[in-house]
């Protein structure tokens, strides 16, 4: 893989807290790589180091072959950062915001004007370019926020949870824009705690929890970590723990756990074994009030790998 970003053994601590602990991953050319983890997992700290905003305590970051540090101007030219919070001047127009950052990237006058026009078209703000950003809707501000990151045509675009607090329509628009970036050949490092976004956008996903990268791969590779098993969730009336214990004796069940008044089983070929499963619950003295069978997703992967729910 022709890596645009190579992170090796990244470490960063704040006092006793190891925010990022020995994290390594690569992002290939034109690849969209997702860092998936709950709030506080270390995603923002990791990308702050990748963007050169934060010094590492250890490890190395290479962007397009250039070593990235807070003082690495050459490496920073290859990176476009779209922070989680809006980072625009609300009292400037979209064009002025773009022009300001274009100057900071050292773009010359002629190239600047053309590129700003192009970015305004891409983010759909060409007809509102002269309005102050403070007058925009939340979605328009988000698009401008992304546009600034695209301005200097970076090799690597870092998007830090760009859909947090965004209405569904704007969210879809942003996700579609990110998909377009991939087709344009830009490498994207995308952090999110929304499983659906990671599944939709990312070629590969790194699962991060408590500062450590606990798993990495394509969606299929990650899901296969918990086997070719189905997830069976049963709402029971009676003792859920006893029911879960009874289910373990059913052929094909890999694990069976009680969660409140539900029993969650991971099992092979659930469709053909449901009658046996329901019978097992009955032998425990409980009865089944509802059943849901589905394929496992990244949420289940995260639960399987960390013992915690992704949205905790």
């Amino acid at each position: 893989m022709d890596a645009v970003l190579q992170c090796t053994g990244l470490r960063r601590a704040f006092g006793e807290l190891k925010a990022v602990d020995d994290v390594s991953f690569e992002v290939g050319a034109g690849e969209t790589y997702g860092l998936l983890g709950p709030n506080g997992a270390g995603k923002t700290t990791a990308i702050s180091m990748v963007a050169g905003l934060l010094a590492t305590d250890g490890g190395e970051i290479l962007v397009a072959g250039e070593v990235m540090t807070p003082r690495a101007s050459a490496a920073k030219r290859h990176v476009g950062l779209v922070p989680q919070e809006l980072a625009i001047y609300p009292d400037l127009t979209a064009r002025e915001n773009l022009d300001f950052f274009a100057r900071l990237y050292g773009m010359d006058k002629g190239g600047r004007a053309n590129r700003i026009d192009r970015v305004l078209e891409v983010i759909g703000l060409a007809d509102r370019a002269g309005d102050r950003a403070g007058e925009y809707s939340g979605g328009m501000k988000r698009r401008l926020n992304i546009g600034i990151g695209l301005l200097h045509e970076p090799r690597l675009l870092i998007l830090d949870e760009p859909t947090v607090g965004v209405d569904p329509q704007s969210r879809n628009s942003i996700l579609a824009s990110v998909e377009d970036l991939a087709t344009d050949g830009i490498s994207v490092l995308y952090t999110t705690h929304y499983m659906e976004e990671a599944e939709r956008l990312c070629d590969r996903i790194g699962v991060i929890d408590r500062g450590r990268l606990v798993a990495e791969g394509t969606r299929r590779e990650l899901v296969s970590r918990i086997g070719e098993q189905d997830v069976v969730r049963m709402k029971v009336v009676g003792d859920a723990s006893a029911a879960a214990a009874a289910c373990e004796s059913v052929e094909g069940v890999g694990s069976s756990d009680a969660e409140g008044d539900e029993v969650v089983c991971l099992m092979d070929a659930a469709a053909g074994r449901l009658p046996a499963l329901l019978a097992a619950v009955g032998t425990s003295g409980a009865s089944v009030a509802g059943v849901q069978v589905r394929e496992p997703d990244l949420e289940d992967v995260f639960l399987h790998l960390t013992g915690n729910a992704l949205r905790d």
Partner: protein
Amino acid sequence: MSPAVGPAVGTVLAISRVELIRMLRERSNLFFVFVLPLLLVVFIGLQFGGTAGTPVGVVGDGAATDELVELLDEQGGVNVTRVDDADELEDLVSRGNLGGGVVVGEGYGAALAAAEPFTIGFVARPDSASMSLRTVVEAAVAEHAAASQAARHVADVTGLEASTLVDLADDVRGEVATVTVTAAEVGGDALAEEFAGLGQFDLGASGQLFLFVFLTSLAGSAALIQTRQYGVAARMMSTPAPTPVVLAGLAGGRLAVALFQALYIIVVTTVGFDVDWGDPLATGVLVLLFCVVAAAAGMLLGSVARNDAQASGAGVGIALVAAALGGSMMPLEFFPEGMRQIALLTPHGWANTAMAEIVRRDGGVADVAVELGVLAAIAVVLTALATVTLRRAIVR
């Protein structure tokens, strides 16, 4: 310019430019930056200025009226303005635009020539200043009508033709011995000497310059906090611009705001109020140094304050107290000795002292070298402190 310096300068200018644009777009600044300084210059000029004389309006036409206007001008302490009619004159006096007015009716010249009685109207508000003004006007009128009065007296005694006698009296006016009263002032007034020769608005303009440059800089530090709060400062750090260049840009923005405020006051008061700012080089160096001090103070406040509201509130408070202590609201010469020493704890105190030397005693750079040196030292210390604290605020 080396390849590395060019982009750095461009980045510094880009950041500074945006900070200035943002200041000009803030609606509340329209009043505090553009209107209020001029209002206070006028107010202080009316309170402490005053060598320009009381404005007096005169209504009337003809050569005799012109002669009377000339005599009024020669009286000193008054500035004569011609007014079209008596109604307008009364209006201007009642509004306070004029200190008083004289209405010279038709036939004044003919009456003087014939040594006939004539009544001139005097319009004023009912206050003590009007009484003084009336005395001045009466003196001018008496001098103008002296020949006519003398001719009337002689004609009444001798029975000769009055108009002939008026011509004769005019001819000999310069040869008649006159009584001159000379005044000697005792108990010399040091304050009067200090402010002698100043234009009406000279005193207020320089004080208000330092007050508003400092006030705008400190209150404007809220913009620096917003730059951090908006996340723009952090985003700047993700660009190839080195940290010192970003810091220089933010500092340059504060300096641009301070310089803009200073230049605005200097230009408008020079053009609109005929204010004398003294030696251009000395004033230029002094104002530039004070702007650096103000910009650094604003940057420091913007680095340590927690939010923009705190920065604005503290900025206005600090700026007003420093201005009051430093002689920007009232001339330092009016301060008791102890307060004058306290004034030197503020940059305003040094700046106002220097400006007094430049404007009132035609001082140059060498004459205010000590004050410039102190301001330069304050600028260096504040800039160093502000740079360190701002760096800590935006670099993680």
